[in-house]
């Protein structure tokens, strides 16, 4: 087994040998299921209230256009999940590098045949796989519940791709932050800060010129995620998340050099 694969295997063993991982997956699956079910229940109630209301007639729809499975249930849940991931994923990534530094096991890794780039690659890969598992856990129930509602498997696939890429993007941010500290708290808080800043830049438009606002919009997470949440898989968005991952990896790798130089 190559050193890289050995590290991947070690990471998987460390991850799934820890009860915190199961608690995280349970929490994510449960919270998303309950949020979704609550939206679904309210949607059904709203539907029947409109169906038995006194408004409307033959030529006019009794039920407003916006009361549908997509606008009333799925999209709000996905929006909520997108922002929730910005808060939840850093809790997963905070320990990846920071715990190694605090324990001193990063020195163990660096005195093996593993290059810093390989260490970063292995940790990013396993973390991405875990984030994908988290997304599956959070998506299985909504997909099963409303696929019967005629939303379409292809549309659901687009939404899942968006959720997955968004999770991977936030994980890249979290991992890059974790690489610069030995404190998991600092890693989490800094990752939240970066993720929330990048979520959207609508707040900066009163202060920035149009070209600057446009540029900031291009690096924001929300519009990218929003496209896929609506069912459009735009290759530029996929490239954005891919770029976020490689920049995150490069920054994490830089942390090893900076440690050797200065800290």
């Amino acid at each position: 087994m190559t050193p890289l694969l050995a590290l991947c295997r070690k990471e998987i063993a460390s991850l799934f040998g820890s009860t915190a991982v199961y608690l995280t997956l349970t929490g994510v699956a449960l919270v998303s299921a309950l949020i979704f079910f609550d939206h679904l229940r309210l949607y059904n109630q709203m539907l029947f209230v409109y169906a038995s209301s006194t408004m409307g007639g033959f030529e006019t729809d009794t039920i407003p256009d916006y009361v549908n499975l997509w606008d009333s249930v799925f999209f709000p849940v996905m929006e909520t999940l997108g922002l929730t991931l910005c808060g939840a994923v850093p809790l997963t990534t905070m320990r990846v590098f920071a715990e190694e530094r605090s324990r001193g096991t990063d020195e163990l890794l660096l005195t093996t045949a593993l290059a810093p780039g390989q260490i970063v690659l292995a940790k990013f890969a396993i973390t991405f796989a875990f984030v994908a598992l988290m997304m599956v856990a959070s998506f299985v129930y909504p997909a099963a519940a409303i696929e019967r509602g005629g939303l379409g498997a292809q549309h659901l696939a687009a939404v899942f791709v968006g959720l997955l890429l968004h999770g991977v993007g936030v994980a890249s941010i979290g991992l890059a932050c974790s690489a610069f500290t030995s404190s998991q708290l600092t890693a989490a808080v800094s990752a939240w800060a970066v993720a929330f800043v990048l979520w959207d830049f609508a707040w900066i438009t009163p202060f920035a010129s149009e070209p600057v606002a446009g540029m900031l919009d291009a690096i924001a997470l929300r519009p990218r995620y929003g496209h896929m949440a609506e069912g459009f898989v735009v290759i530029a968005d996929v490239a954005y998340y891919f770029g976020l991952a490689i920049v995150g990896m490069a920054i994490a790798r830089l942390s090893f050099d900076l440690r050797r130089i200065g800290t």
Partner: protein
Amino acid sequence: MAGESATTPSSSAACPAVEAVGLTRRFGARVAVDGLDLTIPRNAAFGLLGANGAGKTTFLRLVTGLLLPSRGTVRVNGRCPVREARAVQRGLGFAMETGRLYPELRVAGFLRFAGSARGLSGKALADAIERVVDAFSLGSVTQRLVGHLSKGTQQRIALAQALLHDPPLVIVDEPTGSLDPLQRREVWSALAGLVGRRTLLICTHDLEEARALCARVAVLRAGQLVAEGATDAVLGGADTLSLFRPAPGAAPEPRA
């Protein structure tokens, strides 16, 4: 090459294991290692002594390439740990202080990972693990979690992982810190068995340990070399303790 017993092709038998020339390392305004000139011969058990904050651990990190020197040079088996980091690390094993292991892994799994990370695989890996498990009497704990074991056992595990790839240079940092007397004896016995076939660099502030294990010692104080030579000569004098008295204003070593 990974897994090879590392008599480095490019170093001759006359090349010392470690050679530092004017080695200096600063952390901000503080100088942790100050113009150190030190040569550690091959196949010797060499002790590096000094009080807390003397610069011992910083020196080890410079030797292993975990830190870059601010000035000066260091060579390990004839190679520069900055420019030839991978080659240097293939030729050395580093047993850190107790606790710098993966507590969530089982001993067997940890050794398997450590060996694989050093390029061992297949039968070579299995043989190496068997060798170190026997050498450090770890047979009864291979299926236990590392974090559940005593400090003494963990220290043996740390030594075992450093020797999986049979390196010519083994660096041990504080091998018996916070161990009880029985555990200390166990570790000394294991270390004593290494002497002769490889260079052993032991970093300690325990004089008894240095006398028990090391043929030659060097004493650091405030990052500078204050004594070096045969163990009896350096530590046999009446004012031995004065070598360890910290310099005024010395601070504890930073954790890098």
